[in-house]
């Protein structure tokens, strides 16, 4: 306990805390402005551009990058890859915080946030893809909370509750994978209704499949990326198993990601072929599409493949950051760059600094919470009383 106290004291005026503190203050100021002046006071949204980065980044990218939870749970519990077990809790925690932030971000974006439960308690619009997204995100946030609860219960010393929570693991994992399949793909399906507004290279009837498959890429890459950062900043919290397995996890997940990205590139090209849009590749948008597909996803695929074959863990770690960036670029392209491509430049959207400020504020809140939990709960190590009970 005394050691914990000294760490807290020591880090109170660290560079991280100072920067995070400033960001939080700015975020709180912007929050007040948003809820006193309306969306118009802080955003560049317009009647032509109803969705900005709070949807393109906070929702679409946030949910994709939080896919590590279901991907790792599937690998460990469904495919029986027990050697990746130590990746599970950090991934579930990242997923849980990611989804919690997505829901928080939506409170800024929608006009009347307290009505967010309305589709489920007042009047259900089941013909809307957004209804499916909302229902799945709400349920999955609950699933992630329950999947994460054993760590919190171990920390609180509630042995009975913890053992009960662990009993539901497999059911929760299966339920979580179903929900993730549905809403990861539905986030892409949101754009299906507007074929006249999304550039044809990004619009496809396969867009739900693209979003689902790329969420697996994001999940695998985020686990590697997150474990890299955890090792850099929380190595003292890691137990022997986590330190021993982290390179195995990078190699294994990197190899899997190489295959998934290769498949993703293949289905993207199949989609271009199915709609016969090859000629569009010669346009400016086509060039940007090729940069996204080969410059971002292709390079990530190559990096993972070489890293896995040559056992170069460092290469895989760098590649994981690149792959995460690739998924971010894709979500931005679909929701912002390719969206409203037909409108003149003066009617297009670019975020205001305040929109970016809120997004940075929310990510910072996530990092602070992650650090708070990792410093206290058994995430990067096994709780001594529960070793070998998995």
């Amino acid at each position, binding site marked *: 306990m005394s050691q914990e106290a000294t760490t807290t004291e020591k880090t109170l005026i660290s560079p991280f805390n100072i920067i995070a503190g400033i960001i939080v203050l700015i975020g709180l100021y912007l929050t007040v402005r948003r809820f006193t002046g*309306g969306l118009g006071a802080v955003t560049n949204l317009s*009647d032509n551009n109803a969705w900005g980065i709070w949807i393109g980044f906070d929702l679409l990218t946030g949910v994709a990058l939080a896919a590590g939870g279901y991907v790792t749970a599937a690998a460990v519990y469904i495919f029986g890859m027990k050697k990746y077990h130590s990746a599970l809790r950090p991934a579930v925690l990242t997923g849980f915080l990611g989804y919690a932030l997505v829901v928080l971000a939506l409170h800024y974006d929608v006009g009347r946030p307290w009505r967010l439960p309305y589709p489920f308690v007042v009047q*259900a*619009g089941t013909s809307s893809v957004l209804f499916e997204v909302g229902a799945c995100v709400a349920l999955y946030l609950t699933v992630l909370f329950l999947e994460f609860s054993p760590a919190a219960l171990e920390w609180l010393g509630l042995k009975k509750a913890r053992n009960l929570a662990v009993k539901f693991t497999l059911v929760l994992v299966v339920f979580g994978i179903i929900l993730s399949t549905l809403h990861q793909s539905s986030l892409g399906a949101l754009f299906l*209704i507007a074929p006249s507004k999304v550039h044809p290279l990004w619009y496809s009837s396969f867009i739900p499949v693209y979003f689902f498959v790329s969420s697996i890429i994001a999940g695998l890459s985020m686990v590697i990326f997150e474990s890299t950062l955890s090792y850099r900043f929380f190595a003292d919290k890691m137990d022997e198993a986590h330190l021993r397995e982290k390179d195995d996890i990078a190699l294994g997940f990197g190899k899997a990601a190489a295959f998934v990205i290769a498949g993703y590139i293949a289905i993207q090209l199949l989609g271009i072929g199915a709609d016969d849009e090859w000629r569009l590749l010669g346009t400016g948008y086509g060039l940007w599409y090729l940069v996204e597909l080969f410059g971002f996803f292709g390079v990530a695929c190559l990096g993972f493949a070489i890293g896995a074959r040559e056992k170069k863990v460092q290469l895989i770690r760098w590649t994981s950051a690149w792959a995460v960036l690739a998924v971010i670029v894709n979500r931005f392209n679909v929701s912002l760059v390719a969206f409203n491509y037909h409108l003149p430049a003066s009617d297009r959207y670019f975020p205001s600094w305040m929109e970016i400020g809120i997004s940075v504020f929310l990510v910072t809140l996530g990092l602070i919470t992650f650090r708070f939990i990792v410093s206290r709960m058994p995430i990067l190590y096994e709780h001594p009383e529960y070793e070998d009970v998995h």
Partner: protein
Amino acid sequence: MSLSRRKFLGWLTAAGLSGSAFGKVAHAATTKHFEGHPDSLGVLYDNTKCIGCRTCEAACNKVNDLPPPDRPFDDLAVLDNKRRTDPKKYMVINKYDGSVNVETPLFARTGCNHCLEPACASSCFVRAYTKTESGAVTYDSSVCVGCRYCMLACPFNIPTFEYDIALTPRIRKCTMCYDTRLVKGELPGCVEACPTESFTFGKRTDLLNIARERMRRFPGRYLDHIYGENEMGGTSWLYLSGVPFKKIGMREDLGITPAPQFTSSALAAVPMVVGTWPLLLMGIYAVSKRKDKIAKEEKEQALAEVTAQVKAEADQKVSEAWEKAAQEKEKAIEAAVKQALEAAADVETEENS
């Protein structure tokens, strides 16, 4: 336009103004084609008659109790800029260069087209929109969450949002004056106000006939295209024009598929995923469990075999050692006996000598 109140009320009764919610059944896999509620109403806008006087805009503002405009409605210089709907205006008239010369400009009305199968209603997750049987698409702000998905979904970019209202922002759009006038037997504000009868209000089926009749009666005046007859599956507002619609700011590349069909197959996949994923996942789980079990059994078996072999080898070695020991013992006894006998023989020889 001339229309008796009695006739109008008759239509309303026929259209059954009960305001039922738009059908929610996805029919992607059928050949069913929805052609609008029977006897539903609409408006035909004939841009060859429009003179761009903005009287309709003023009437719209008045009957819908909208905020006062930035510039007065009789200021026609407003027409020099392209405008779109916003929370202050449910409809606008825009000016475009004429086909003959710029001195004879063309005008076009922009506002809600009241789709037969509206994208906004299909995309709304609280069913704030209703395609009423009258034909009007109405909006209920008392359930609206303000997610603005309808604005993204609308192919005509019509719904607008009160971005400057902090806590109770609403979507704003033309409702064909459903609540304020239609139910009272009155014409929509813009239709009633127009001095040139550019708007014709009536049953959509009748309006299509009227449009075709005008084409027949005035050859060369109109393009052979009634905008809204098929666009996005058909709309309750219909348009006649003498120039291609894209020249007056209307998209001709929208296609004829009703918006709900774009998402229906994706939504239809939901129950399939819910049904098949548990089977698939538990199947993979069972296979991997079984693999673990077999691996464990094989390991145990191999261990048992090795143990048995080692034991057998050890037993053999022990028995061999025993045998050897026994043999050696026998040999030793024999040798001892022999030695004893020899010794005895020596003693005998000595005694005899």
